[in-house]
């Protein structure tokens, strides 16, 4: 599903040039759950931003479902992103002015889904994440665990092919963290490809494969378990 080859990302200021990704290459198959690990500043989040089409790269190739997207402009990236990718962040990133329901509804609005269909899909996602009873609450009225459930519901409501999770349990206690990991595993079991950046060895164990990074490069790749089957 994803194939990156010699991917490069360099940040330049007047005085310094920082190589965030240095000829990084790997691929992710459809239905796979991949954990990316490494120390702070190794380029994990940069990689995730490029995979999520939020950022562009300076060199290399990025095939998404067989299409070269490395040179896509902002509009094309936005189109591809909203149809195919869901995001889960460490700090949840819910919009404070919107209720639980409205936060989850947001991706559907930008995908021009009709109001009636939106209602069905949002309620389904909230149900799945067991947060329906908090549908009219604002993020600041929810606990951290509840906020992350809403964030996961928002990530899946559009039924994306790929979920990118950036330390999804980083701001949660172990109980809530495990619950979120269970949710992601369930989603993965239902066929959603997941790429997760994490510092937690515990969380990484949920994945099929762990890619370890250092200074913008892939250093090791461990397969924890085989993909049961390849989703078509």
């Amino acid at each position, binding site marked *: 599903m994803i194939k990156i080859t010699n991917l490069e990302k360099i940040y330049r200021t007047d005085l310094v040039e920082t190589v965030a990704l240095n000829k990084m290459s790997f691929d992710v198959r459809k239905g796979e759950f991949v954990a990316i690990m490494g120390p702070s500043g190794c380029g994990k989040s940069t990689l995730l931003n490029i995979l999520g089409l939020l950022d562009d790269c300076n060199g290399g190739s990025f095939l998404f479902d067989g299409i070269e997207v490395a040179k896509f402009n902002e509009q094309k990236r*936005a189109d591809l992103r909203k149809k195919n990718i869901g995001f889960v962040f460490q700090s949840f*990133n819910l*919009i*404070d002015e919107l209720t639980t329901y409205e936060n989850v509804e947001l991706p559907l609005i*930008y*995908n021009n889904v009709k109001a009636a269909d939106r209602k069905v899909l949002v309620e389904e996602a909230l149900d799945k994440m067991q947060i329906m009873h908090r549908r009219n609450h604002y993020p600041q009225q929810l606990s951290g665990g509840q906020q992350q459930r809403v964030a996961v519901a*928002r990530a899946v409501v559009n039924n994306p092919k790929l979920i990118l999770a950036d330390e999804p349990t980083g701001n949660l206690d172990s109980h809530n963290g495990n619950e979120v990991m269970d949710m992601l595993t369930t989603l993965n079991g239902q066929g959603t490809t997941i790429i997760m950046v994490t510092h937690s060895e515990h969380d990484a164990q949920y994945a099929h494969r762990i890619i370890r990074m250092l200074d913008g490069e892939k250093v090791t790749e461990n397969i924890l378990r085989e993909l049961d089957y390849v989703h078509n």
Partner: protein
Amino acid sequence: MFKHYFKTAWRNLKADKLFSVLNITGLSIGIAAALLIFIWVESEYNYNKKFSKHDDIFLAENTHVFNGQNVTYKTTSPLLAPEIKQQFPQIKYAARSVFYPNILLSTTNDKIYKDGAYADADFFKIFNLQFVEGSAGSALKNINDIVLTQSTAKVFFGNGNAVGKTLKLNNGVLCNVSAVIKDFPLTSSFQYNWIANFKSFGVDLTKETWTDNYLETYVKLNSAKDVFAVNQTLKDFIVKRDKEANAHPFLYSIRKLHLYSSFVDGKVTGNGNIKYVRMFAVAAFIILLIACINFMNLSTARSLKRSKEISVRKVFGADKKSLLLQFFSEAFFCSALATAFAVVAVVLFFPFFKQLMQLSIDVHYFTFTHIAAVILTLLICTLLAGAYPALYLSSFDPAQILRKQHSSRLGGGFIRKGLVVFQFATCIILLIATIVIHRQIAYTQKRNVGFQKNNVIYTTGSDYLKSTDLLKNKLLSSGVVKNVSFGYGTPIGIYNSGSGFYWEGKDVSKNIDIANTEISSDYFSTFGIQLLTGRDFLNDGKDSNSVVINQALADIMGNEGRIGGRLYSKGGSSNAIITGIVKDFVFDDMNAVKSKPLVYRFDKEHYGQIFISLKESHNISQPIATIKKIYEKIYPSSSFAYKFLDEDFKATFEQEVLVNKLSALFGVLAVFVSCLGLFGLSSFMAEARKKEIGIRKVLGASVFSVTKLLTKDYLKLVVAAAFVGAPVAWMLMNSWLNGYGYRIHIEVWEIATVIVLSLLIALVTVASQAIRAARGNPVKSLKTE
């Protein structure tokens, strides 16, 4: 989608109350100012457009050549209307109209002074006035017919029929009311309360000449398209009939009469009331712009708070277009709320505005044009206020923001600072303008105009006075009066002028426009006009061929400009001897440096006004009551209507006073709205620099030093605004003052005062927020960061 945007906009407004209150208040003021001005501008543009087929109606104006200069007058000879109607097939109707202000209308029971006119019957065919009683055909059929407006008729005859009844005009002719028309629209260039038959005005066409231009000639063409052809022929129409007349008439559309009334060297200048319309419109737009700048600045300053939201939206599929749409929707939402408040404010404050600006406007608020204007203002406001924040906020890079969580530095600073500089530069310009205009008015009002303005009253009615000696003696012996004289025109109200004066040695190729009027003896002492040489007119009847001239004319006349010099009128019909020369005084343009040439003729028979200088008195009503009693005893059928000369003097500054009020009002509004923005901005900035302030305080900074740090940036902006605004204000005001002969010069202290005032206002505005931030607990701010 829009529902979602409006919902977000509403919640954002609710969540950030300071932002909302500042923005909506500022925008409401801006929009209200724009709407008030729109109503006024609309009425100015609608002048004379309530007459049906107004495109076909024209006023014949006359361009005269004086000393090689073309001067345009709105008055023409009584010979013109009948002659052109006959000669031009394109002219459907032509009517003469002589305006008569303050004429006594009386019946046995009631008397009232009202403005009106003598006009030809065609007047009612040209101006399609609405008849309440009678008709255009029968309006002025007989010589003594008079047409009254509805409100005038009501004074005399109540709600009953007026047609067929009689009233006395000017204490003389008994007129028969032949029709009643609706009052003239307020947006009409002339406001007549009665129209009498021109035939009763007493014009003998056989004696009239093409050089006697004292009335207005209105024309209705078959089609407005004919005007070019008519004007081509009309140009030499008078010269062909009288070579010496030197007048070139042309037809001028009544639609343009109000706004474009100023002619220089025979050409319309684009000045006139349009100058004020433009000034008002620019002022309103500036206030609106200042309010929109607040919205721009506060929205972009708030970007710190909204960066996460924008990034999340982008991550979940929002493209630039949908974000632009969202921020425009928010600007629209905010502007719409402000517009609603502004509409209410306009309805509430319009009477106050009308009174302040002394406007005569009849407003119907809910018309199609007004609704369209409200919608247009709303859209302009949305675009002005929304465009920059929409572009700025939608360009955020989500990857960067989400990676760093919150950017601690606020972008868009340069533009924001530039906009604040613009706001304060505008305030400085308006405030300097207010001071300069005010000082110019005060300077001219205090000038020694060469005649006494205070304690002089005059009658406003123009009855032909008899028994003047009796009245004068009675008044003088009353003990309340210093001097009494008679004539036409106070030194402020001399309107007759002409080029038909000659003297020995005059260069006949040069036409010189000389003001002239008739007066009695003691006129000069009544008005304190200094006689330089010679004597005043004598009341013994021997002065019928005497004239008194002013120094300006004496200088022009050269050798003949002396006592005993002779002044002839055209055709030699009069031959006058100069018996006195008075010192120049300002009589036409109160701002003029030099006096125009002037001739006073002695006329014992035809006095229209009484001039009375009063003895000093603490209670002015006492002597007035005494005078009224004496006057009404001698003229029992008249009532004593009077005016103070100093009021007339003040009235000559009407336009300057209006501009002054406007600049003061808009200056204060501009300062207020700008300060709203500055307050909001300083509050957001203090919030954004919370962490920095915390660190500084931990490292030992005092409250004063932190306050100084937060305040000085804004004061620098005001200083920058002063560098921009002061030279612009100086240039604008100097060019305005150049229009005045008698003028002040802009002083450095005026500019310095405004700059210091602006700095103080800015300081007070931002200091409260700065002190609050400086006094905050650093531990708290560092923890929250």
